[in-house]
Each structure stands twice: as C-alpha cells, then as structure tokens.
C-alpha cells in the first residue's frame, strides 16, 4: 500500500486498497450499532410484555436495526471492503477504473451514515425498514424524511461502487485475462454490481416520492386521496428484492475462493458457477412481488411471481452443489475461513430452502409477517452473508495487512458464532409457524420459552462477533508476518507481496493459466526453487 503517511493522505487517497480499509473501519462501526439495536430487541423479547421499552420505541429499534444492517452494513460489506481491495488485483490492474469516484463513494457512505445516525438520535424512525405507505407518508411523525435522505445518499455510494467494478472488469483486465480465467469472486461481484447499477436508482426515486408526499401532503401512495399504496411497494421491492442478491452474491464469491483454496482443488463446474451468478442477477429482477402476496396484487401476479421465485432458487442451488463437489476428494483443511465457509454452506442452504416454502404463495400467506420470515432472512443474511464476510476478512487479512490472525482463537470464535447463531434463529422458525407475528414488542406467553432460547443464543452470538474485533486488531501489531501466499492459493493477489505495492504490480502481468490452477502453482514453486 502507499507509503504516504498522515491523515490527509488517507482522506484524499485514490488507492483502492486504502479506500477498502476506510470502508472496513466504517462498516464495522455501523455493524456494532446495528448489533447493539439487535441486542435491545432480544432483551425486550425475553418477556411477553413490553416492559423494557414502550411499543413505539420498540418499533424504532427494529426499524433502525434493519436500516443500519441492510444499507450500512450488508450492502457495502464485501464489495466495498474486500471487493475494492482485491478486484483490481484479481483482474491484473493497478487500480479501479475510476479512483476518484471510488473515494467519492466512501464519502457519500460516511455522509449518509452521519445523517442516518442523526435521524436515529433525534427521534428515530418507526416505519420498519420497508417504509410502507401510507403509514410512512401520512400516519407517523418520526424522522422519515431524514432517514429517507440518508438511504438515498447511501444508494449513490452503492451505485458508484458497482459502476466502478463493471467498468474495471470489462476494460482493465490484463493481457491473457479472459472472462473465463477470472476468479469466481470477480464474477459474483460483477453480477452484484449490475444489480447495484440498475436497481438502486429505483429505490432512490421511491424515497424521493415518499419525501415529496410527506412534504406536499398529497396522495400518491395514500388510498384515501386516490393513490395506491401498492405502487409504493412495487417500486420499493423492485430494488429491495435485487438488494438481497446484491448482499449475498459477493458473499458467494468469497465462498468460491475459500472452498477452492482450503480443499486445494479447482472449483467444480467453473462455468456453471459463473453463469449462475449472472442468472441470479437477471432473474432477481423478475421476482419482487413475492413480498406482496398478501397485499392485494392480482391472482395472475401471484402465480407468475411465485413461479419465477422458485426458478431463482435454482442457480443458488447449483452453486451449493458445485461447492460441495469441489470439496469431494479435495485436500481439506480447517482454517478459520474454511470453518466460516462450512457454516455458510449449511446455514445458507437452510435459509434458501425456507425461501422456497415462502415462494409458494399458499404457504406464504400463512407464514408471511411472522417470525418464519425473520428466521428465513437471518439464516441467509447472517448465517450466510455475514459468515461469508467473516470468511473473506480472515482469508484476505494476511494480504491486506501483511499479518496473520491468531488461528486458534479465531476458530473458536467461528464455532461460537455458529452455535450462537443456531440457538438464536432456529427457534424463530418454530415461533413463526406457531404464529408469532414479527415487529411486535409483545407476544402471547406460550411463546416465551422459545424467545428466551433465542435471546440466550443472541448473547453467545454477540461474543462470537466481538472476538474478531479484538484479535484482528491485536494481530495488526502482534500477528505473525504473513508473507505473500500463506494459504498457497492461486489468484494474482497471492503472487504479489503482502500488503501489495501502491500500484499492485511492478509491471502489468500476463495471465497464461486458468483460474484455480494448482498445478501451475506447484510449477511456480519448483521454478523458484530451481532458480534459488
């Protein structure tokens, strides 16, 4: 990384690696705020009554939890931190195509975050992260406008990151780097970037309309004034469904890398995985109304969207199969990134399967707005995406910092996370099928046992997330020096020093082998040994 010192050199940097680190610090900060809010939710739900906080306050807490976790943590997590750092190196370039736009993207994120925090501290928002109208436009007096603006700005941060990735991947691949020699991490982020660029603007205009409606007091989304609340929901979910793929695809990209490296085997069915990533992105645009099955859409729409939603599960399943087949007859080792990857594969599969239950509109009518949904998306987002993020952070930590994290304690943290996660969220599937509704501070007393289980699990989970902060920070000063390729992984980023030079490569490399070519790697080691 750049040798320049001083705060200003960081705040005015164009170096994608420094911007990645800036993002890492910022999103970790927001993760802990979102996590604290989650803690408050679980504390409140220890008892059936609303005794820890007023129901209105509870509404604010879960709304802010969702908003922060989705827009300020999950969406930028892998792309803006790991993606920013490794994608230029993976394609063999010196930086992203538009370094200044990259820096702007971070500043927009920070501005959005500050605005969001300000909205939170001056009264918060209690509409749920989904801002459903006309509740959000006419019936509440909380900081809808400020929060809406914060998300609007964060959206542009996301758009610029995605735009940058697409241009870089198309135009800055080094000689010999054909599309099918790219690491699958690049393919996944490419697919997610398409979603960012095409989907986020619709969220932007939707938020503008909500703000305008609050200001002008007319009824674009209010049925009492001739508007249609479903119009809001169509526009909102047109982005927010692809958003879940924006969140998960980069995580899947991480898993492709870790599963291959820690079974020392090329990813099974490279082409299928690559095309599945793009398929998820394309199909992801056709399914949004499955969030609206009970809202009054037509029967025809229910049929079409239900069918399409079942289809979109297929490419995700293909990827899981391919990772499983990568493991088969591989030379598996259990470093921390691999532990998190195993966690991902199991938990994402469960979460994904429950998604298929929800895709069926009949079942969905019973399960929607219950804790089944809450469990479903936490399995895919936390059991899936967050584990993938942690896998990625651990995997590329040596490359980014030049230091190894302490293996034993990190494996312990991974285990604690896995156990805590299952205790927290599995009971919620049961609660949902039994009928406990979501977004309520109170519940019938017969649900208390499972809720207590869930909160106990959440405490363990919290410990599991706290540990990495501690030991990763520790490792910056005291960790073992990593060397260029501690994992003996393929990929251009592992053929350069840790941390990399400012311009990544002393000279632009030529790519002359396929991705995940472990024989080539062995050949390189022999070559170096014979020269030395």
């Amino acid at each position: 990384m750049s040798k320049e010192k001083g705060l200003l050199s960081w705040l005015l940097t164009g170096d994608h690696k420094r911007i990645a680190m800036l993002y890492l610090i910022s999103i970790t900060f927001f993760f802990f705020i979102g996590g604290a809010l989650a803690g408050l939710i679980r504390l409140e739900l220890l008892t059936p009554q609303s005794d820890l906080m007023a129901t209105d306050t509870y509404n604010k807490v879960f709304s802010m939890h969702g908003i922060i976790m989705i827009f300020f943590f999950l969406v930028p997590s892998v792309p803006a931190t790991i993606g920013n750092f490794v994608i230029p190196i993976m394609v063999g370039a010196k930086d992203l195509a538009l370094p200044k736009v990259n820096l702007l993207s971070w500043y927009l994120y920070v501005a959005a975050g500050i605005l969001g925090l300000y909205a939170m501290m001056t009264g918060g928002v209690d509409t749920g992260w989904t801002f459903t109208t006309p509740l959000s436009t006419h019936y509440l007096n909380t900081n809808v406008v400020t929060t809406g603006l914060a998300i609007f700005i964060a959206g542009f941060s996301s758009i610029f990151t995605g735009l940058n990735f697409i241009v870089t991947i198309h135009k800055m691949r080094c000689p010999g780097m054909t599309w099918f020699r790219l690491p699958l991490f690049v393919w996944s982020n490419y697919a997610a970037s398409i979603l960012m660029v095409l989907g986020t603007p619709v969220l932007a205009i939707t938020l503008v309309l909500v703000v305008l409606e609050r200001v002008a007091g007319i009824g674009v989304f209010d049925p009492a004034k001739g508007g249609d609340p479903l119009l809001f929901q169509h526009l909102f979910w047109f982005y927010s469904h692809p958003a879940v793929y924006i969140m998960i695809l980069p995580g899947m990209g991480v898993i492709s890398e870790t599963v291959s490296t820690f079974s020392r085997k090329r990813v099974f069915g490279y082409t299928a995985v690559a095309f599945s990533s793009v398929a998820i992105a394309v199909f992801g645009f056709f399914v949004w109304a499955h969030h609206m099955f009970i809202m009054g859409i037509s029967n025809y729409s229910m049929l079409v969207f239900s069918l399409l939603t079942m289809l979109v599960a297929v490419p995700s399943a293909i990827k899981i199969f391919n990772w499983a087949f990568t493991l088969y007859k591989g030379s598996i080792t259990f470093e921390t990134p691999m532990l998190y990857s195993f966690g991902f594969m199991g938990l994402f599969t469960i979460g994904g399967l429950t998604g298929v239950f929800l895709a069926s509109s009949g079942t969905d009518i019973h399960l929607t707005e219950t804790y089944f949904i809450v469990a479903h998306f936490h399995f895919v987002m936390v059991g899936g995406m967050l584990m993938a993020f942690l896998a990625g952070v651990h995997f590329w930590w040596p490359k980014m910092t030049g230091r190894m994290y302490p293996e034993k304690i990190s494996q312990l943290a991974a285990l604690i996370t896995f156990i805590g996660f299952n205790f927290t969220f599995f009971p919620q599937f049961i609660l949902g099928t039994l009928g406990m509704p979501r977004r309520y501070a109170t519940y019938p007393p017969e649900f208390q046992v499972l809720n207590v289980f869930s909160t106990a699990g959440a405490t363990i989970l919290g410990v599991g997330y706290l540990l990495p902060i501690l030991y990763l920070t520790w490792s910056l000063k005291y960790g073992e020096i990593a060397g260029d390729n501690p994992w003996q992984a393929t990929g251009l980023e592992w053929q350069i020093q840790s941390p990399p030079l400012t311009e990544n490569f002393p000279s632009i490399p030529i790519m002359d082998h396929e991705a995940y070519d472990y024989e080539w790697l062995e050949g390189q080691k022999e070559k170096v040994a014979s020269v030395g």
Partner: protein
Amino acid sequence: MSAPHDKDFESIEQHEHEHHIVSPRIYLTIVCVLLIMTGLTVAASYVEMGIFNPIVALAIAAFKMILVVLFFMHVKYSTKLTKLTVGAGVFTFLILVGMTLSDYWTRAWGRW
C-alpha cells in the same frame, strides 16, 4: 505469469477507438427529422384515434429516441458492449414498467 511483450498489448490497441467521426451533415438531417416528428406528434394529438392516440404518441417518441441514441449519441458507430449496455437499460426499464403494470391490468380478472 511471463514478462509482458509488445504483442500482448496488441489486443488493447485493437480495441482502440476506430473513432468514427460522425459528419455534420448527418447531424443536420437528424435534427430536421426530429423537428418534423415533433410537429407530427403535436398534430396527431388533435386527431381522434381512440386507442391509437397514446400508441402513436409513444411510437413517435420512441422513434425520436432511437434517432438521438443512434446518431447523436454515436451508438450506431459504437462497440457491441455499448449497444448491449443500452439494451440492458431499456430491458430493465421495460421489466419495471411492464411487470408492475401487469399487476394492475390483471386485477380486474378478479379471484379465479
């Protein structure tokens, strides 16, 4: 990885802008057509055509858009990637409008 040679950068140079410069004559023709079509669309709005009024209006607008995209924005002379990009944008826009509207249009079909 081997050391880069001259020939490895050839592929980059091949993609160099053929940089086709569109002539002012073409621009002039296009702007005249656009202005004529504008007059046409105004005139058409005064004629009672039933269901065809919005169809004609949108068709004329689409035609004007295609002219601007192909000639003023140089897409006719651009790479396949540019054409694909424009197509992707239009496609996604049509999905948004089409699938949303399909919900509204089919509500009248009632419960089956």
